[in-house]
């Protein structure tokens, strides 16, 4: 890269995190620390049934066992000081946790926070036709468009609400895709999750709008443990959007969410994420630890689950949205853009487990590394013996900016059925000085040129996003590039 572009990138890179602000709302927090009492407190605050409390306690026991046996995962290509799980606050809710009927009843300061994030609920309601279930710290405070969805029998809202409304669905499906003992952070989440989103799309119903949730971590030292469960019954279709931003903090914040998706016969779930949590400053101080377990089960025949993610934030990302392709002819897709800058570390990818016959999966991963960041793709494609005629196509491309960042690709292939087809392609490239000069000679500024080239690199993934989200993601990539490519 040229001297001038380095200088420009440097300048842009030193820009402050635009979403770094703290909302001053009284919170109702439990003391820091993890023990049975905290779990009981969370469960009691949520008026949960006994079975759920028992489930949480089982998970907590399992987590403590893992902690004792020192099975905290260390295989990912990320480095961070050991987390003291007793220092974390596991429950924090805005004091105003009463049910609300309209936006007018919401604390204006809260609305102001959303406005800064560019997600004014009013505006979203009016213009986008997006039903937003906003999670502010751990409790849902606003849900819109619920009535309209209810007419079609769609249940969409906060997880805790769903526990009250349709406990049988929760009991049937919770932990059925990501069991409590699945991994270290899944066990922790199962014990202490505070809220999240739930959606159920009944048989044959095509959800008429994109369902959307914005997560936001607010109170200092608050671990955020979201639990999301989406069920698409036979022949149902749903597109779900998840977007995240967090205010600036000096201390690292742990985020360990679990997302479970279930698609029955002929159902389709499209799950899109745009994540731009605080990545820490340019020296690697602060930022979110994002240790997430996301997994979808294509239980039914001809079912389809598609993950699309644009990840630009967090200090550390550890995330592998996966598909278990159980039903014959089911389809799994993973489209990912992961951008890292400064000292950010990302180890992300997917798992495609082919069990059913003629199951098909596609993996398109685009990694962009800048600054001194490290960006790893880690993907597993497993073809089980019964998966006759299964097919996988994987493409992993890396783009390096500057000469101090790194990109890594770790593909794992386990093929146990000879009739299957598995293809893997990988490339690594840099933004060429010639490309920048070409754009500039046509009158396009260096900054716009970089943004354009990166967006072009990500096009295959961005076009998978729903329209309104794609625009946001594109803007975010531009913004993160400005603030992060260096």
């Amino acid at each position, binding site marked *: 890269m040229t001297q001038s572009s380095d200088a420009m990138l440097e300048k842009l890179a030193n820009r402050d995190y635009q979403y770094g602000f703290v909302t001053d709302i009284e919170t109702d927090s439990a003391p820091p620390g993890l023990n049975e009492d905290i779990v009981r407190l969370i469960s009691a605050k949520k008026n949960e049934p006994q079975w759920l409390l028992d489930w949480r306690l089982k998970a907590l026991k399992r987590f403590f066992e893992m902690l004792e046996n020192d099975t905290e995962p260390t295989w990912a290509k990320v480095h961070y000081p050991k987390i003291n799980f007793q220092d974390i606050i596991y429950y924090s809710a805005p004091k105003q946790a009463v049910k609300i009927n309209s936006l007018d009843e919401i604390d204006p300061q809260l609305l102001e926070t959303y406005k800064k994030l560019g997600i004014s609920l009013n505006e979203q309601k009016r213009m986008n036709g997006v039903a937003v279930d906003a999670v502010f710290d751990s409790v849902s405070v606003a849900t819109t468009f619920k009535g309209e969805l209810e007419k079609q029998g769609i249940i969409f809202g906060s997880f805790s609400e769903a526990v009250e409304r349709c406990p049988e669905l929760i009991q049937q499906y919770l932990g059925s895709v990501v069991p409590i003992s699945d991994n270290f952070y899944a066990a922790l989440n199962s014990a202490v999750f505070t809220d999240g989103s739930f959606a159920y799309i009944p048989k044959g119903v095509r959800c008429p709008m994109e369902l959307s949730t914005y997560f936001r971590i607010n109170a200092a030292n608050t671990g955020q443990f979201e639990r999301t469960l989406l069920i698409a019954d036979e022949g149902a279709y749903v597109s779900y959007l998840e977007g995240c931003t967090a205010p600036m903090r000096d201390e690292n914040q742990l985020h360990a969410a679990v997302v479970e998706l279930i698609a029955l016969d002929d159902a389709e779930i499209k799950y899109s994420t745009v994540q731009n949590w605080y990545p820490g400053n340019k020296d690697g101080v602060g930022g979110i630890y994002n240790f997430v377990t996301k997994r979808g089960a294509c239980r039914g025949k001809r079912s389809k689950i598609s993950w699309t993610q644009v990840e630009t934030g967090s200090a550390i990302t550890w995330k592998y949205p996966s598909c278990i392709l159980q039903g014959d002819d089911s389809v799994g897709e993973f489209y990912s853009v992961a951008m890292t800058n400064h000292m950010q570390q990302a180890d992300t990818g997917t798992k495609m487990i082919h069990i059913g016959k003629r199951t098909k999966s596609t993996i398109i991963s685009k990694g962009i590394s800048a600054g001194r960041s490290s960006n790893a793709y880690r993907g597993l494609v497993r073809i089980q013996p019964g998966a006759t005629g299964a097919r996988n196509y994987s493409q992993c491309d890396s783009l390096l900016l500057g000469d101090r960042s790194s990109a890594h690709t770790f593909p794992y292939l386990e093929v146990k059925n000879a009739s299957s087809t598995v293809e893997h392609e990988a490339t690594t490239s840099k933004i060429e000085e010639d490309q920048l000069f070409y754009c500039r000679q046509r*009158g*396009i500024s260096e900054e716009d040129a970089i943004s354009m080239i990166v967006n072009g690199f990500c*096009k295959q993934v961005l076009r998978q996003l729903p329209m309104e989200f794609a625009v946001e993601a594109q803007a975010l990539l531009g913004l993160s590039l400005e603030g992060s490519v260096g």
Partner: protein
Amino acid sequence: MDNATPMLEVKGLHARVGDAEILKGLDLVVGTGEVHAIMGPNGSGKSTLANVLAGRPSVEVTAGSVLYQGRDLLELAPEDRAKEGIFLAFQYPVEIPGVSNAYFMKAALNAARVHRGEEELDGMDFLEFAREKMKLVEFDEALLNRGINEGFSGGEKKRNEIFQMAILEPRLAVLDETDSGLDIDALQVVANGVNALRAPDRSAIVITHYQRLLDHVVPDFVHVLVDGRIAHSGGSELAHELEKKGYSWLEVAPTEAATP
């Protein structure tokens, strides 16, 4: 700008690429409305001159001056030169995967329009405008929606350069061996593109190895660049002479004046 001010005035230009000094005291005046051809053997500095005019960062100007419409060109960033009307048709156009030609050219055109205080064209208006230009340079509309030069053949890339030139309607077009490697049909397209832009208020510098392009684009002046300086200038007939005699008769003792 009055008519007496030339489009381009290069004086005593020295430039280097890495450690190698390529231009060694080049003088050139291009009048407004004129087309100049620059010929010369390989390595004589033709492309370096084109790159200096466009502002390629890897070329360092060590001495001399370049005035563009009376203004110091060298102090302008490449994108500002472009917006001021300088266009370089690249010898080796780059590929930018995933960025559509149409999107790219709309951004380029609008950058220039904003710079001139004109309104931006929206998608529909741009497409209408682009279609007109596509006809002129026989540019396949399918290529408009492909990534910039992504998977284009050599000829398609060159055609794309001419198409972009037609869109941007530059004041000063610099064509860096756009004709090399082209068949006669493509050559005609390049010529049409340049001729369409010929106007009393526009100028062009056509860098070429071969006289054949100059049969279609008849230049007002022909210069021969040898070892970093203009060794000889003349009218369009000079191109024919060069075709017959080659360059060797011009390469007489260039060293004595090579040191500034």
